[in-house]
């Protein structure tokens, strides 16, 4: 009895509790379910909201319905091709058949279609502040640039119809096209150009352009009031730029960062220089004068731009371009499904992409150089040029290039001509040493120079270095050590490496970058004595009076014969003195689906859209 009542009590207790607990759990479950629904709904709503924040809402009301139609057509196409895949051939891909089917089902409406390009997350959409090549890919297409860069890195007029240069390269006269309309209907005049220059030059703006343009007369004193002496606008379509010192490479300078883009004065003039970067228009610009207009930027997902029908030249043939933010490995998968049309391929993905029937792979020389700075000026061990030559001889540079780029590279023996780009007048310097692999010669030179074989040298590289650069420095370490130069590698965070670089606290410092322009004078910032850090990028403190003099002479004349002799001599001195180690120039490799026509691969990926207005698609 006692036992029974006890058991009963326990059971009673249990049931009581269970009821309350059951209710609780039921309610919790209900709450969880409703919470999910609410979350999903909210997410969907949030997307709708974004859709409404449409950068081009105000203009082109007539064009809107048309573009909406295209969107629908595209969506249908995609869904259908997906279905085809599942129903018919789950194993094998046959892209041609897919597109054929799509053609039959959805007749071509004569629309220009769209192209999707692989992209990465941009930092800003304001050309005055961009410091990564990622956003520079789209600036010229959206804003239009005074000078744009072509696939061979040459500077070409874009918004300007023509440019006149005086004999000693101190005055440049730009003739602006007279029919340029901003997308809000205002006309672009020389005032907009002057305004953009002024904003770029006011220190408070913090623009990346200020350093590049500081040669313009009156910029040092300019504080934002009145006019800059060196920028003169005699009429609505003429801009004269007067330079303090001769600068034959000025046009190329203006084509840096993928081109000096013009922002509309009437939109920006009421916003003070220091507030410009914080302004929402820096992330969501609204007024454009380029071949395309921004439709929307979806954070971390994609940027959509559409044809600007009011562009002053023949309107682009495409309806729209999507810049899609993806990991390269996923990009390759999307290239295979046809969701992505153009991407820069990592070397390791080339083989896989070449196997796709509907994708072509192009590997072209690029202006990028894989270089390491030798501490010439601040470390006596490297002051003797024989030591630096030995550093070159000790490396099997061609073997390293093959390991790092799987054969997609070009050997280089100087940075002035070696990047492979330059106008024809530059010619080809003679008598340059290729420093073919010769470890015995390296050892000889080291002995002659009295090298201390017991004291190791330190090569620093960075956590931000790409895989191919890690390959280069790892093999280099091995080969230097074999040739008698014991080498220790130090891996540093980029900012820390930068600090040690500018303090001169290193032996060898792997940097790598490029000479992104078809103009030999751009290398001056690395090799002249007035460019020691923090004033410039001569991190190795290399100093040669003749080189200084030659670089100065090269800017002071626009006579091409004179300039040829000057830069050939610089290349010869450089090749003999080797203040850097340059292993090779890595190629730029693109994967392009065959439906895209008219794509001319740019040697420099930051310039990938340089002729996007001429692209078409063949579906």
């Amino acid at each position, binding site marked *: 009895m006692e036992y029974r009542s006890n058991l009963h009590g*326990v*059971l009673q207790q*249990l049931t009581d509790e*269970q009821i309350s*607990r059951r209710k*609780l*759990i039921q309610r*919790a479950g209900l709450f969880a379910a409703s919470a*999910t629904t609410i*979350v*999903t709904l909210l*997410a*969907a709503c949030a*997307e709708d909201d974004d859709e409404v924040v449409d950068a081009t809402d105000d203009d082109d009301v007539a064009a809107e319905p048309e573009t909406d139609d*295209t*969107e*629908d057509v595209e*969506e249908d196409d995609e869904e259908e091709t*997906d279905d085809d*895949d*599942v129903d018919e051939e*789950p194993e094998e*891909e046959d892209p041609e058949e897919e597109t054929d089917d799509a053609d039959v089902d959805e007749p071509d409406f004569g629309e220009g279609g*769209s192209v999707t390009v692989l992209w990465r997350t941009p*930092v800003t959409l304001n050309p005055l502040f961009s*410091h990564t090549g990622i956003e520079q890919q789209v600036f010229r297409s959206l804003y239009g640039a005074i000078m744009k860069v072509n696939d061979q890195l040459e500077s070409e007029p874009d918004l300007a119809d023509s440019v006149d240069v005086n004999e000693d390269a101190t005055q440049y006269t730009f003739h602006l096209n007279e029919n340029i309309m901003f997308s809000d209907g205002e006309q672009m005049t020389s005032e907009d150009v002057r305004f953009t220059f002024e904003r770029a030059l006011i*220190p408070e703006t*913090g623009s990346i352009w200020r*350093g*590049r343009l*500081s040669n313009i007369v009156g910029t040092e004193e300019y504080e934002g009031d009145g006019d800059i002496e060196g920028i003169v606008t005699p009429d609505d379509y003429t801009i004269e730029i007067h330079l303090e010192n001769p600068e034959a490479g000025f046009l190329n300078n203006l084509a840096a960062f993928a081109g000096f883009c013009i922002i509309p004065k009437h939109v920006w003039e009421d916003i003070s220089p220091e507030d410009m970067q*914080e302004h929402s228009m*820096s*992330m969501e610009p609204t007024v454009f004068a380029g071949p395309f207009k921004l439709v929307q930027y*979806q954070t971390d*997902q*994609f940027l*959509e731009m559409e044809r600007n029908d009011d562009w002053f030249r023949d309107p682009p043939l495409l309806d729209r371009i999507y810049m*899609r933010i993806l*990991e390269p490995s*996923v990009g390759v*998968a999307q290239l295979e*499904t046809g*969701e992505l049309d153009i991407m820069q391929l990592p070397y390791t993905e080339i083989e896989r992409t070449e196997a796709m029937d509907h994708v072509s792979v192009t590997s072209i020389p690029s202006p990028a150089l894989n270089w390491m700075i030798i501490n010439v000026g601040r470390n006596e061990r490297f002051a003797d040029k024989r030591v630096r030559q030995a550093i070159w001889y000790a490396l099997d540079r061609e073997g390293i290039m093959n390991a790092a780029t799987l054969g997609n590279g070009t050997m280089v023996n100087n940075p002035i001509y070696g990047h492979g780009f330059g106008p024809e007048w530059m010619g080809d310097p003679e008598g340059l040493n290729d420093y073919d692999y010769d470890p015995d010669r390296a050892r000889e030179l080291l002995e002659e120079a009295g090298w201390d074989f017991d004291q190791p040298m330190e090569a620093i590289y960075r956590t931000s270095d790409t895989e191919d650069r890690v390959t280069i420095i790892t093999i280099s370490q091995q080969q230097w050590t074999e040739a008698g130069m014991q080498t220790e590698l130090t891996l*540093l*965070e*980029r*900012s820390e490496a*930068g*600090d040690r670089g*500018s303090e001169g606290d290193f032996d060898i410092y792997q940097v790598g*970058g490029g000479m992104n322009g078809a103009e030999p004078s751009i290398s001056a*910032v690395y090799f002249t004595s007035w*460019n020691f*850090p*923090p*004033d*410039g*990028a001569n*991190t190795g403190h290399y100093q040669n009076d003749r080189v200084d003099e030659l670089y100065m002479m090269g800017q002071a004349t626009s006579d091409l014969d004179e300039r040829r002799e000057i830069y050939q001599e610089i290349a010869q001195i450089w090749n003999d003195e080797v203040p850097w180690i340059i292993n090779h120039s890595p190629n730029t490799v693109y994967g392009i689906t065959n439906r895209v026509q008219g794509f001319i691969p740019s040697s420099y990926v930051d310039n990938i859209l340089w002729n996007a207005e001429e692209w078409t698609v063949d579906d």
Partner: protein
Amino acid sequence: MGRYILRRLAISVPVLFLITVALFLLIELAPGDPISAMIDPDQAAVMGPDWVETQRRQLGLDQPLPVRYGIWLRETVQGNLGYSFLDRQPVSKKMGERLWPTITLMTAAQIIALVVAVPLGVLSAVRQYSKIDFSVTVLAFLAVSIPNFFLALGGIYLLGVKLGVVPTAGMGTMGSPAAMLDALHHLLLPASVLGLSLAAPLIRFIRSSMLEVLHQDYVQVARAKGLVERAVIVRHALRNSLIPVVTVVALNLPNLVGGTVIVEVIFAWPGMGTLVLNAVRALDFPVIMATNLVIAVAILLANLLADVLYAVLDPRIRYS
């Protein structure tokens, strides 16, 4: 109970304060400074010597550390999270854009994890040492040991590229207006990948919790009452074994706002994980501080919630 919650909340305030002080010091101790992390020192030199100075002045980096912390604290208390060092956009806007995608993804993943883990865990416990138990255990171990990114890339290749049943990446079809079905379609693969890796430890947890409960007296009692096995397991054993599971799930909640870097990046999912990673790389003080503050608050609240839930679900536990 109410007093207990209030006391816990009151303790949270100094804890949060200490967290922000420690964070500020930690970021300051990191090598380099935000300017050189943002742009190659090499390139900065090309932009002219005063560019770096202007940037430092604009970002307030020329002020001493205590002053900067003081300003940050004053503004944050007033609800102003400041501007990102990197793109100078308001931090609240940057977080706002990414919070919902992350919450959507992580909630879906958590639900998938529960839906997979509860039945498998129970089955595995009820049929202990059977073939089912063995397969579930092996499966769980596999899911735990396969890294997220591998599952993600494998899923993209198999389901996205070869079979074409799910989109390979993104939150919606580009160029088409946002639609519920499209959004769910895009959510499927990333949520499943995350859900699977969340489910694996849960399966193991539910299995052991269930085994423990199955050996309790009251389960014997239920059986002795002559209840069908199904009722014994579902009504008596499962409910009780879920109590500790609720705690584990509650402690997972901070991930809902914290996000997950790798899966977000692979699926081009614009979430908090990516934002935090980029901020840390760029030593973007305001963004690091704000995101960590949000995550810290979430962790404190989730812990409190776990404790409270525990007390509510298990009457043996009382707080005072």
